[in-house]
């Protein structure tokens, strides 16, 4: 593993943690609703370094991030880590199988949608024994759509910029 690779992984991990913490301060009407800004770091890691590096970045982010905001090992952490890892896996799988069909935007959308779906499943089957949580589907999908686009467009721009400066 090259020094460049290690450095960029660490850098993206740090950026992800920072975004994660910053986002936890952005007021949202509901705790589930998140733009998912931290996902920028995952998308960049996937595109610049590949799937394994991205999984590392995500693992680093959810662990250190939750330690910083004080939710480590709480249900919120279990939700965030499981949903984070699975959605990262989905993005990696999409990238590997679909090659260049999707840009950062598409990958980010895949990530955000899988994220909310996994979250909902976990909530339904582990915590709330009632199908009523499914009434949140429209709201969650809308957030995923908006969040996925925002994250995707930012990542897209960053990928180009970072290429220009030959990081």
């Amino acid at each position, binding site marked *: 593993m090259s020094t460049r690779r290690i450095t960029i992984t660490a850098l993206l991990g740090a950026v992800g943690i920072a975004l994660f913490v910053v986002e936890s301060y952005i007021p949202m*009407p*509901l*705790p589930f609703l998140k733009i998912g800004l931290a996902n920028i770091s995952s998308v960049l890691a996937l595109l610049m370094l590949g799937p394994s590096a991205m999984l590392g970045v995500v693992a680093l982010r959810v662990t250190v991030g939750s330690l910083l905001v004080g939710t480590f090992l*709480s*249900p919120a952490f279990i939700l965030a880590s499981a949903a984070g890892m699975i959605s990262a896996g989905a993005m990696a799988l999409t990238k590997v199988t679909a090659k260049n069909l999707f840009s950062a935007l598409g990958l980010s959308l895949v990530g955000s949608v899988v994220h909310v779906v996994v979250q909902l499943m976990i909530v339904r089957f582990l*915590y*709330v024994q009632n199908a009523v949580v499914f*009434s949140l589907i429209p709201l969650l999908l809308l957030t995923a759509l908006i969040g996925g686009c925002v994250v995707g467009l930012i990542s897209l721009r960053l990928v180009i910029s970072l290429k220009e400066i030959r990081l």
Partner: protein
Amino acid sequence: MKPFLLWVTIAVSFTSCSRDEIRPHSRQSTAMETYVSVTTYDGNLSQHDAYALIDSAFAEINRIEHVMTDYSESSEIGTINRLAGKDTVEVSDEVVSLLQASLSFSQQSAGAFDVSIGAIVKAWDFLSSEPEVPSRSKIRMVLRLTGFKNVMVEGTKVFLTEKGMRLDLGGIAKGYAVDRAVEILKRNGVQHAIVDIGGNLGVWWEGTRGVDSTVAEILVRHPRKDGKYFGSLKVGTAGVSTSGDYQRYFFHDGVRYHHIIDPATGYPARDVVSVTIIASDALNADALSTLVFVLGREKGMNFIKDREGVEGIIVWEKEGVLHHELSPGLQGKFTRSDD
């Protein structure tokens, strides 16, 4: 874990509240030999106030049950029955006005509705564990003890002329209790509520009226399919009631015997399967659903058409298939859902 669940609850209520501003408060219990449900839908009502008002509605229903029941010998109705053929009984204005309303229904329907049907009802005893068909001689006997013309009401004095005669307010008391409960809520400033006593509904929605409004969805049970619905309609402030041969019944030699007895024959009325009435209040809906059921399909529908502000659905069965007819004001407003 705990705060997390709280958030889920808040999240769910948030999504539902944003849809519309209904905040239901509801309580169910049992009274008058059936279930009772009182629901208010006022957004500005605090939970505490809503339940306090619902409780006073329940108290009113229980009070009426104690006055009207014929199971108790000491209730006003029980006393009239006990002293039938013997003595006049001084009763409350409430009982007088309810009896007068009943007698007026009797006169308008030539006895299809009869509050003096108690002896017949007792002979059939649909609430027993193994109801059976009474003998012909028994029916002949109880028929002689039935007749609204033998109910004497003068001022606040009531007298049944024959010994063994019994009043039975089963065809009107629940509707009356619904109206009274609605009145209590209304008088205390509740603007939206539904009171339900065993399927006798009182819908109270300020500023709306009958089948011209569409605030409350009314589901009509399927007469032949358990747990299914025959159809639905929408109403505003109204009383809604259904009399059906499927509500209390038993089979004997393959024949269905149900609780809606024709006072003229002493046997279950046979022409129709169910009658749903939408009227201005629950008392009218309750009494008219029984009355129209006994009158049968044609006479019953004519009776509905002749009355201002009354709409109805009559369901009958022919060769195992259910058919229904709507009163003119319900055309296009009832959606049948069983096909």
